[in-house]
């Protein structure tokens, strides 16, 4: 999910004016509100694998890790960024041991402070934690792509909320490009197989896909600075996600695709330079 960092290095602190500030209020407030609402819904529904303590442990660990890293890197503490990472993880990750939730929160924040190229983090923190844990402990963690179902109202709600968030964060282009590319691939598959359109329609209504598209891949701090770069980035994620899911039958293909494509961001920034995004509240 969209994630930010609070001035991680003295260098970036000294030059905030070099970025493009999003207009209006800080979009992270909307993001926190939306994610918290979705988490409340998830807890109320009592889905299999969801327990009350998981989210507080994960969010708590992310906040603690942020506090520790801020002290270590001597930057001011802001709770919004780790809260967003913790909420995102609580919504998307599943793990059967509480310590894994704590580890996920810490890994997300740790990656944000340590895996950086030219003052910009390479991975979306929550995505890094999900992918790292899936790769390191496939028998202990999982994601449940079906858990949000395909009920239209929920999809509509997500899209509505996401547009509200992204309109302010000015990164709707990444989400739309991803949705268009991924949807296009599903449509081509459907046409080649001679399947009814109901199949790609059902696949695109997946709540988990929409959550990923509008909250995670759109991280303004971990996507290319230029619009052209972001479009290339989104298309690569869509193509790899499709290949992992349909060719290799890897269920968390979306998250692993974003993880694998993220290191392209510094390269795209070098080839297609543009001014960097900073949150208006930072």
């Amino acid at each position, binding site marked *: 999910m969209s994630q930010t960092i609070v001035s991680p290095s003295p260098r970036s602190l000294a030059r905030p004016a070099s970025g493009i500030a999003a207009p209006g209020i800080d979009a992270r407030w909307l993001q926190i509100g939306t994610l918290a609402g979705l988490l409340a819904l998830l807890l109320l*529904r*009592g*889905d*299999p*694998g969801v327990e009350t303590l998981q989210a507080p442990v994960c969010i708590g660990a992310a906040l603690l890790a942020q506090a520790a890293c801020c002290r270590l890197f001597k930057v001011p503490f802001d709770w919004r960024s780790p809260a967003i990472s913790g909420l995102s993880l609580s919504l998307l990750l*599943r*793990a*059967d041991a509480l310590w894994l939730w704590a580890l996920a929160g810490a890994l997300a924040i740790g990656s944000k402070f340590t895996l950086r190229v030219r003052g910009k983090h390479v991975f979306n923190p929550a995505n890094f934690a999900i992918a790292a844990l899936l790769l390191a402990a496939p*028998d*202990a*963690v*999982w994601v*449940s*792509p*079906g*858990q*949000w*179902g*395909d*009920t239209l109202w929920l999809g509509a709600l997500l899209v509505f909320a996401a547009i509200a968030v992204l309109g302010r964060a000015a990164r709707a282009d990444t989400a739309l490009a991803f949705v268009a590319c991924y949807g296009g691939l599903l449509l081509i598959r459907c046409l*080649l*197989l*001679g*399947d*009814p359109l*109901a*199949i790609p*329609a*059902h*696949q695109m209504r*997946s709540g988990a896909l929409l959550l990923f598209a509008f909250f995670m891949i759109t991280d303004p701090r971990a996507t290319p600075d230029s619009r052209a770069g972001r479009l290339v980035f989104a298309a690569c994620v869509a193509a790899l996600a499709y290949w992992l899911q349909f060719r*290799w*039958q890897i*269920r968390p293909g979306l998250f692993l695709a974003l993880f694998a494509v993220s290191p392209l961001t510094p390269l795209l920034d070098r080839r297609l330079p543009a001014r960097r995004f900073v949150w208006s509240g930072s």
Partner: protein
Amino acid sequence: MRIACLVLALVFGVAESARAFCGFYVARADGALFNKASKVVLARAGDRTVITMASDISGEPRDFALVIPVPTVVKREQVRLVQSATIDHIDAYTAPRLVEYHDYDPCAPPPVPMPMTASRAMGGAEAALRANALGVRIEAQYSVGEYDIIVLSGADSAGLLTWLNENGYKVPDAAKPVIGSYIQQGMKFFLAKVNLERQAASGSHFLRPIQVDYESRKFMLPIRLGTVNADGPQELLIYTLTEHGRVETTNYRTVRLPTGTEIPLYVRDEFASFYRAMFDRQARDHDDSAVFLEYAWDLNWCDPCAAPPLSADELRELGAAWVAPAGQSAGGGQPAFVTRLHVRYDRAHFPEDLVLQETADRENYQARYVLRYPFTGEASCAAARSYQAELPRRNADQARNLAELTGWADAAIRARMTETGQPLR
């Protein structure tokens, strides 16, 4: 001969009461609970899937034909027959259930509870030429027990459909696009028909479940053929055996049914209609597009079991090859996790095949409904008076629970409760 897509009546529970860890299990349902309920057992470890399909025992054997898409060519040694009793056992073991409790004498000191594990307890050449002409390739052909089996691949859905119909598999034209889609996906078709002569020679009146094992990354269950010619929604029960944890669908929502609710005592005699009504309501509430979890249990965790647990040999028979044979394992538990999923599907709400995944979730769950019998003995202490005063409120709660679960009219529930000795005031 129509495609008998594993039609089997769901026999609900076991026809006995077993002493339970906490309360008694009462399996009351007689006969079929859901019409047209198919049963499939999937054992999955790594990329190996063993699928066991219960065949239709309610019709004439000559009417039985099975057509299922499979990801690979299935050879003779990959097909076995399984005892129907083993399927019946996993069904009974995982079935939603009623449990009953009896209140203690309110005047006697409460018994020391046992360590609480209640929530975890329970427990030919011409044919080949014709096939060639139609673009159909017979990949394998053999007999197993009472079945004649053919594995087909095709280049063209129309040719394959023609072949199927010429060979006694009455597949409707509407299935053509679905068959075409499976062909494009590289799937093969596993066909089984009953060889009446061999069946007669065996002296058996029952068709044994067919089991196929194959290696494939695909962990899914094809349901689309089943929706082509169905009149109304189909019921499907999927029992999975895995090494690590619960199985869920990744392209449909997996939902836990309400469980542990106290309901009026009269439901004991109409558990089947109660469960049907509750399931109907749950399916509707989830837009008829959810998969329902009815049971999820770590078989290492049986202390004691509600129904007699599945033995190592039964688990192995159902494809859980990683379980050590009987006599070679230590302790009573088995290193396997069983999940029971109940799907009510039709084309409108389930356009895609079910895509499955094993999770790391080992939390035990069962769909379980509670009957609580009041103490009816002589009691005259102060505690007995407050106990008696409390009963109508408890009964009212049970009435409300039943109305909420089933959508049955509150007034009718209350009237039945009063008739059956559960006063509400």
